[in-house]
């Protein structure tokens, strides 16, 4: 019946003291402890819970990045996902990659895998973009339930209680849909030993963004600093943005 795609991101562990590289080109990542983004853990937990309640048949964990992200996929498998997909992006491409490319990849995979739900964390703790879920939904033209603190499946619809600035909002959206997990959605389980041992046998498929028809991320151009607000408005008018 249904398949759920869960996105997991490998980020620097929340407890690590971040240090800036001496050449100021970024933060030190070599030898630093990495783990699954906490909101992605909550997303995985929700997907596995839905499978345990028999609303869905299969949970597929997806991650984009260099070889090390397979560790994160294995953790997702140890938490109960059935199989993994590793979309390989490394080196400069990985550093330039942002939510837009990720959402293109997820959109393509959601169509390829015929997923009924795509569940992501609401944001990653390294870039705090809070964009991937929303962009994925837009690219797929699917409804979205973001900042979910409660998810209930009701036939062909999903009831989502969202945490918004004013309080809680309840919406009912039809599937297929994209959900993003917020903090209070659930408490992720500890990976049990038997599941960690079983995760070894689960499959992780390997592919490149090109296989999904997603092209390379564009090279990032340098920005321009202006002195005043008027300058800014003039520049934006000049290049046709406004």
């Amino acid at each position, binding site marked *: 019946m249904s398949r759920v795609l869960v996105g997991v991101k490998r980020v620097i562990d929340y407890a690590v003291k971040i240090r800036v590289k001496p050449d100021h080109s970024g933060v030190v990542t070599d*030898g630093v402890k990495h*783990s699954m983004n906490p909101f992605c853990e909550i997303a995985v937990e929700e997907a596995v819970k839905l499978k345990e309640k028999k609303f869905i048949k299969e949970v597929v964990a997806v991650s984009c990045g260099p070889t090390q992200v397979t560790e994160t996929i*294995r*953790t997702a498998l140890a938490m109960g996902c059935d199989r993994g997909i590793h979309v390989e992006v490394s080196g400069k491409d990985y550093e330039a990659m942002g939510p837009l490319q990720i959402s293109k990849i997820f959109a393509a995979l959601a169509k390829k895998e015929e997923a009924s739900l795509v569940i992501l964390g609401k944001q990653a703790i390294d870039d705090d973009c809070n964009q991937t879920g929303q962009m994925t939904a837009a690219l797929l033209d699917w409804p979205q339930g973001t900042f979910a603190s409660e998810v209930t499946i009701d036939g062909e619809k999903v009831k989502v209680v969202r945490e918004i600035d004013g309080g809680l909002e309840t919406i009912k959206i039809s599937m297929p849909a994209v959900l993003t997990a917020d903090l209070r959605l659930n408490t992720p389980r500890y990976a*049990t*030993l*038997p599941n*960690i*041992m079983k995760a*070894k046998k689960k499959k992780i498929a390997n592919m490149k963004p090109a296989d999904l028809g997603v092209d390379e991320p564009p090279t990032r151009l340098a920005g321009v600093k202006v002195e005043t607000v008027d300058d800014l408005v003039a520049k934006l008018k000049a290049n046709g943005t406004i």
Partner: protein
Amino acid sequence: MWIKVHLPHSKWRQNLTIPDQLYAGACVINVCPPLPCQFGKDSTEAWVTDLQHCKLQLLIMALRSAVCRLLVNPQRCAIISASRSQGSAAPAQKAKVQFNWRDGLELEGQLTEDEIMIRDSFRDYCQDKLMPRILMANRNEVFHRDIVSEMGELGVLGPTIKGYGCAGTSYVAYGLIAREVERVDSGYRSVMSVQSSLVMHPIYAYGTEEQKEKWLPRLARGEILGCFGLTEPNHGSDLSGMETRAKFNPSSRTFTLTGSKTWITNSPVADIAVVWAKCDDGKVSGFILERGMKGFTTPKIEGKFSLRASATGMIIMDEVEVPEENLLPKVSGMGGPFGCMNNARYGIAWGSLGAAEFCFHAARQYTLDRIQFGVPLARNQLMQKKMADMLTEITIGLQACLQLGRLIDAKKAAPEMISMLKRNSCVKSLDIARQARDMLGGNGISDEYHVIRHVMNLETVNTYEGTHDIHALILGRAITGLQSFTVNT
């Protein structure tokens, strides 16, 4: 000896730089001759020390990838010639490896992916769920039975057993588990060790298929709690002299057990007990006693100042009728209990180092934070010497435990190896805990800082499962061929 290197395409890495001395002298390479070139001594040669013996990574900074491709010589894929460096300037720069005081000899790189995942997952559980409970549990001498069920859910009980609802991990993983839980408290680790090595293991190793099916899954889930009855009030180190007797009754096909056991972890709240008694033939056998059997009582030992978070008591057997089905048939003689104890001792060798690590880290943090005479305590040489000693013993101890674990997994371990490491880990950990307590000064005696609790606990850990001296005799016998346990011969 310096070797001229051609970097084969397959080994080319993006982050390659030349040794500093040459780089300073070399101009930036911006000419691409048609032939593949090497870094010459003047500007383009790259010299490295003998790659066999030194982990050298060539790093090339500021060289564009086009230039790097110059180094790639697709025809040759190996280090070509070794020639002596003629110049006096020998390039000495290597990639700087940062010393990690938390993991002095990079144990992390010696573990498999599974072992790392198991350790990380269980460490999170211990820090999140066990650490908050331990202060009050220890202060008020309360045993939280729930932790057994929680650990059962995580699958860490009897982890090395294959089948019967157990995870079937390596012995190294078992050691890592013990280390994480003892980092919180030795009492909790004792509970885990008893259940895994002293109750589940004998049933698995010496029991019938029916017994395994009946008991192991429930023990693995933590549904039932077991205890191990071997030590007696008058026979601690001298186990073969035990006074508990098991008389066989042919008419009812039962055994009648009479005797007492003491210092039994879990006994006041245990559902079953694996008890060792001397049978009619003078040989020791193991029996499974169940709560509710007539004559089987388990009084609690009061006034205990160690392992307070775990329940310890006696096992009193007053003519307890035990059915034949509860005898563990596959072993007879002292080999049975010793086999179990070796299993537990291995876990203790890893575990006590976990407690030592906690004390070391606590002492480090405390001495960094506390200012006396205008400087942190950690600025003082006496403090640094103590921490250096702690770091060394823990690091070396862990390496030994890892090797032992790998040997056990390969079925190449002798009991004396386990004795050696249990003895070493326990005595070193006890010393580290005491030093740490001293470094914490007055605050060191408050249980809020936790170190004093480890000091108290490690006294027991050093004593049980074979005292320091007894293990010395085991090793002495192996070294000399002469036993010195008894005076008679």
